[in-house]
């Protein structure tokens, strides 16, 4: 199936190259606009400057992007000891995807259920919210983690960073240019007079080209960017089905996540494409993206993603996903050349009984992970109350507010290994 990744990579390189050409053309046209077209040097210079800006920004984004994104989203790393089940699920999917290293595991204290992944296959991180841990069953959580591992395996985080920075550079350069033209026209200080007599026609063409590019390039770049983002979401869904051999897990998880209309506090426009469902849409309470400006959306409509996963039937390979995609939308999603030899991937034996999720209990387990991270001491009182003591608690004896039993803090600490 990794042929699909290769095909994807080739497609990505073509798209990045298209965007790069757009960027260089914009830079060149601007150079020509301001410094004349008698010789090609200003145009080349403009293109070089635009390329250099993009290059530097990409270097910064790739070296620091992961840490910045994790910091912005308020994610905190958890150890295997603090969150054994989550770690186990990540490790299971790491094995299923044959990643060279296990991603680090992060938790965000957020009621909104969501998840994202960043990094490269040998150095990645998966982050989930406490809200996600509260409402999903183990199978559903596995489906979501598999989707994120799919992103890591397909190197989506890096690609979207490179593409995103390129879109950003194009937007900024076009913006600065149109502003400078606007103010230049307003205050009359046009440098054009110098060259108005010579090379008239070419000059006019370059002017028009520069203005048209400045207006169109940001829009085009955005459309390319969002189309890439969406096709990568589909591919990550397909990977989730292949890794877990159980598309229903992700399907019902997506259903639950899109059903929860809680805004994700730490999300913003920049981090939005990373999440498993777009956090901004969930927040605005609008439909799941099926309506509105689909072209400018990072994720396909969630209802469609669920429908495709549920149409897959009992074969779960990429070919089966592509077939299901075709049945739902009438198009192909994965390059046809990459679909060989995975016809016989069967859905796994399903867990016999599915217990309904105990949201209360799972909420406690999720918040307890955070309490442990924050260094709380857990005292189970004989009356049934669990007392969670913050590390700043200064007294030595603690009276249970319910039954009045006195607990000695030092003694409890002594009896808890590693506490």
């Amino acid at each position, binding site marked *: 199936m990794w042929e699909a990744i290769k095909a994807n990579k080739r497609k990505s390189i073509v798209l990045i190259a298209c965007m790069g050409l757009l960027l260089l053309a914009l830079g060149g046209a601007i150079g020509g606009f301001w410094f004349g077209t008698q010789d090609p040097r200003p145009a080349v210079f403009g293109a070089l400057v635009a390329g250099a800006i993009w290059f530097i920004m990409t270097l910064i984004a790739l070296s620091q992007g992961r840490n910045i994104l994790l910091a912005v989203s308020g994610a905190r790393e958890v150890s295997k000891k603090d969150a054994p089940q989550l770690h186990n699920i990540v490790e299971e999917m790491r094995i299923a995807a044959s990643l060279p290293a296990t991603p680090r595991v992060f938790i965000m204290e957020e*009621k909104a259920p969501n998840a994202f992944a960043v990094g490269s296959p040998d150095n990645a991180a998966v982050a989930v919210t406490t809200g996600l841990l509260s409402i999903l069953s183990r199978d559903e959580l596995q489906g979501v983690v598999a989707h994120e591992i799919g992103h890591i395996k397909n190197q989506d985080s890096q690609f979207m960073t490179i593409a995103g920075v390129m879109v950003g550079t194009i937007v900024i350069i076009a913006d600065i240019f149109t502003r400078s033209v606007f103010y230049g026209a307003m205050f009359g200080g046009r440098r054009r007079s110098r060259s108005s007599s010579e090379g008239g026609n070419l000059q006019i063409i370059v002017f028009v080209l520069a203005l048209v590019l400045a207006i169109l390039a940001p829009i085009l770049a955005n459309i390319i960017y969002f189309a890439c983002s969406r096709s990568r979401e589909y591919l990550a869904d397909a990977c989730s089905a292949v890794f877990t051999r159980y598309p229903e897990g992700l399907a019902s998880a997506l259903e639950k996540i899109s059903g929860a209309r809680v805004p994700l506090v730490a999300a913003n426009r920049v981090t939005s494409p990373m999440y498993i469902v777009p956090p901004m849409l969930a927040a605005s309470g609008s439909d799941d993206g099926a309506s509105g400006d689909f072209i400018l959306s990072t994720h396909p409509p969630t209802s469609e993603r669920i429908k495709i996963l549920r149409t897959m039937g009992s074969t779960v390979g990429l070919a089966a996903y592509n077939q299901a995609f075709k049945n739902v939308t009438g198009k192909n999603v994965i390059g046809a050349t990459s679909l060989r030899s995975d016809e016989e991937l069967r859905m796994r034996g399903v867990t016999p009984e599915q217990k309904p999720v*105990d*949201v*209360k*209990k799972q*909420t*406690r387990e999720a*918040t307890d992970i955070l*309490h442990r991270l924050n260094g*709380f001491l857990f005292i189970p009182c004989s009356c*049934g*109350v*669990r*007392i*969670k*003591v*913050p590390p*700043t*608690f200064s*007294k030595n004896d*603690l*009276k249970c*507010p*319910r*039954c*009045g039993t006195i607990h000695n803090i030092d003694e409890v600490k002594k009896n808890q290994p590693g506490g």
Partner: protein
Amino acid sequence: MLCPECRVEMLVLEHEDIEIDFCDECGGIWLDEGELELLAGENGAPSPVASALASNANAKGKGRRPCPVCSKKMILADIDLGDSASTENRFVEIDKCPKGHGMWFDKGELGQIISASGGGESVIAFLGSLFGSG
């Protein structure tokens, strides 16, 4: 979380899978919005305590305590415990976050809530089973 009254870190108490924050100094409790939701969650009956948090209609003005979540000054509000409560206990004044992050009961208010029978009110029943008759 810091106690809005004493400014010290509160204890967290877990009972029947619900968490509340309890101040060991003054005996007041903080009920978080999420926990109220979990409490009301399954039976679905509109609880007067939980609905008091959702609307600001019964607000009686600004209090002096800050919300432990967002630090905004909390507002004072009356909770109507209904006909089944005795007349002098029918209305309880509590502090609640204007943004709906949760509500604060000081020790006296807590006692008043628990002594009201409340007619199957999930929040009162919970607080009663946690702090009542102890």
